């Protein structure tokens, strides 16, 4: 079953031949840019520009139609005015496997609804499956295909679907900054033919994909989506960012992708029954994908008790409230932990209960080495299910010479290694927008990402991400299934 699915989708995710319709012999259209990008990205197969009159485009021989290419086409990228497209698809006569139509002016506007029907019918007649219309393209690292200006340095394990092209771009680009690495990102637009459930089915079967993310406005065949996700038993975590959950949001969705958004109640039900995590904002979505990428769920010990450790008293008080609202406990330590921390004789101003507030002066001791003793006490005695280390970088500026931040990360990883499987570790690097500080933050974020530590901008982001992880773990636990990882 899953082999059949993988075989079926292979030409899309690993095309050997790509046709491009809409590239110009002179200009710089989006299809021209697409051709340049996939060549830069390292696409190894044949590229066939299709053009009614030009003999060559960007140095590649051009062909008159999809029926005239030397080899059949695995993937066609199409961006020309909508009305021209149906005849082109019909002309393919079974020589094209997948066509992605970027052009808009279809079902998302009233006057384009009939044209969308014609487009879908033409794809069937031409013998191909259709992605779009009204989308931006796809990114498949293994296939050397990319639609965005930049792409992650390496392939990863997060498979994403976006019903919005813009959010698809954000998914790739902001993902790079956060350290998310994708197996693929597909923008699916109006879903005139292939719909979210088709790609969910692929990602569930795909061994390179371990985490699934979906921005969706309309489920299409919601029943099929529900059954797929239910039968998958959450063995791969799925984060869903649903647009159009409120009545006004639904109106915006109807004019955006031309689809009636399903009832919010149904989506909440879907998440409860399938273990998918429903998130509310783009930040929460990406933070959740990052979390699932880095942290293996622990259904046998669902995340509940959290220790906050870092500099910033007020920030940790606010965070304690927010974690509580997310169903996570930042509870004061028992006496044995307090005694152990008191024995360290930390400088005044250091709080030795949870949240553990350690001003920069404290963290500087032994160039950060003091943290090892603090964390040893926390891991050994308090045994939390998650440790959130938060560092307000502005407080470190001009006050530390040694690589205190780097040392802190190393220390945490050492302590983690002594208590395997005990606590999820996440890092919050807080900055204030100052350009120099942002530069240092980027550098540390990259170092943390290389070590497999998820990094968030604020404690709020960490709270929501851990909430998603906890929900997933609790679902697995309630259904007595073990995670794939």
């Amino acid at each position, binding site marked *: 079953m899953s082999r059949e699915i993988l075989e079926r989708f292979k030409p899309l995710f690993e095309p050997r031949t790509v046709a491009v319709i809409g590239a110009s012999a002179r200009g710089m259209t989006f299809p021209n840019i697409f051709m340049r990008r996939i060549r830069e990205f390292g696409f190894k197969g044949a590229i066939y520009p299709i053009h009614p009159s030009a003999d060559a485009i960007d140095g590649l021989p051009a062909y008159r139609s999809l029926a005239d290419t030397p080899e059949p086409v695995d993937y066609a990228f199409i961006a020309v005015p909508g009305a021209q497209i149906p005849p082109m698809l019909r002309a393919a006569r079974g020589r094209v496997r997948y066509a992605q139509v970027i052009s808009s002016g279809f079902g998302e506007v009233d006057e384009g609804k009939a044209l969308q029907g014609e487009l879908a019918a033409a794809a069937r007649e031409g013998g191909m499956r259709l992605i779009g219309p009204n989308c931006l393209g796809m990114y498949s690292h293994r296939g050397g295909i990319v639609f965005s200006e930049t792409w992650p340095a390496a392939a990863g394990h997060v498979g994403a679907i976006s019903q919005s092209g813009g959010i698809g771009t954000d998914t790739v680009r902001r993902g790079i900054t956060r350290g998310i690495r994708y197996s693929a990102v597909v923008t699916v637009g109006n879903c005139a033919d292939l719909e979210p459930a088709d790609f969910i089915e692929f990602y569930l079967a795909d061994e390179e994909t371990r985490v699934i993310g979906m921005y969706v406005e*309309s*489920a*299409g*065949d*919601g*029943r099929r989506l*529900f059954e797929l996700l239910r039968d998958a038993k959450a063995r791969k975590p799925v984060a869903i960012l649903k647009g159009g959950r409120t009545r006004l949001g639904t109106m915006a969705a109807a004019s955006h992708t031309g689809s*009636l958004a*399903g*009832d919010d*109640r*149904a989506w*909440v*039900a*879907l998440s*409860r*029954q399938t273990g998918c995590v429903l998130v509310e904002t783009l930040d929460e979505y990406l933070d959740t994908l990052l979390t699932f990428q880095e942290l293996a769920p622990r259904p046998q010990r669902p995340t509940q008790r959290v220790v906050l450790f870092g500099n910033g008293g007020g920030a940790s008080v606010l965070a304690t409230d927010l974690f509580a609202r997310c169903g996570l406990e930042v509870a004061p330590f028992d006496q044995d932990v307090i005694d152990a921390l008191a024995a360290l004789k930390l400088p005044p101003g250091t709080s030795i209960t949870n949240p553990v507030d350690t001003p920069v002066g404290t963290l500087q001791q032994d160039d950060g080495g003091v943290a090892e003793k603090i964390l040893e006490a926390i891991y050994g005695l308090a045994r939390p299910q998650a440790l959130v280390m938060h560092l307000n970088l502005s407080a470190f500026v001009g006050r530390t010479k040694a690589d205190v931040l780097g040392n802190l990360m190393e220390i945490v990883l050492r302590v983690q290694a002594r208590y395997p499987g005990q606590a999820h570790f996440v890092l919050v690097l807080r900055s204030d927008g100052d350009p120099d500080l942002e530069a240092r933050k980027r550098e540390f974020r990259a170092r943390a990402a290389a070590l497999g530590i998820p990094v968030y901008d604020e404690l709020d982001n960490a709270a929501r991400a851990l909430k998603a992880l906890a929900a997933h773990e609790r679902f697995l636990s*309630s*259904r007595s299934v073990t995670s794939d990882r």
Partner: protein
Amino acid sequence: MDAQRLISEARKQGRAALDELAGKQLLAAFGIAVPKSLVVRDAGEAASVFAALKPPLALKVTSPDILHKSDVGGVRVGLTSSEAIVEAISEMMAVPQIASARVDGFLVEEMAPAGQEIVVGGVRDPQFGPLVMVGLGGVFVEVLADVAFRICPITRLDAGEMLDELKGAPLLRGARGRLPASRAAIVDVLLKVGGEDGLLMRHAADIQEADINPIIVSADGAVAVDARFVLTKR
């Protein structure tokens, strides 16, 4: 009567919804307890019906034109004699909204044992198909929208989680001096309505909306006291 026949009968008569008696027969066909009831066409049949049922009794007008019976005075409870039934019928017929409606008859039924009121509903979502809902009765559903939905079919675990999701869940366990309601009985009704081979799945093509309201749940069981099934448009 066989469940599919109840629906096709109603369709044959051009009805948009099942009447209360047919609705309860549908529930009974799925093993959900409903009060014992009989239909009278008019006051003349009251005495024979009274003899066949165990008082106190409830009386309800049956009309395709009246959506909310109790709002127009079409429901009377606690009737303990055939004279009381006769009197209640003539009082109802004096209400303008009832007098002007097409009245099929009156449902006379035994009253459920005391308990807590809950609501179980269903709706056909255009994308996801049948959904099942549960909530506590009265203001909890109508004002606070304290309800939980699931996509059908639900499992026993889903049904239990639906109840735990309700803000008013402690009330079912007997908080604030309420009579404790049988959780097992509610789960059982939810499975019969929304489960694998339940009513909503079996008749997904025919049922647009379902409203089983109220269901009276005591410590021992649950009885569906009123039910309304709106049919899909054909």
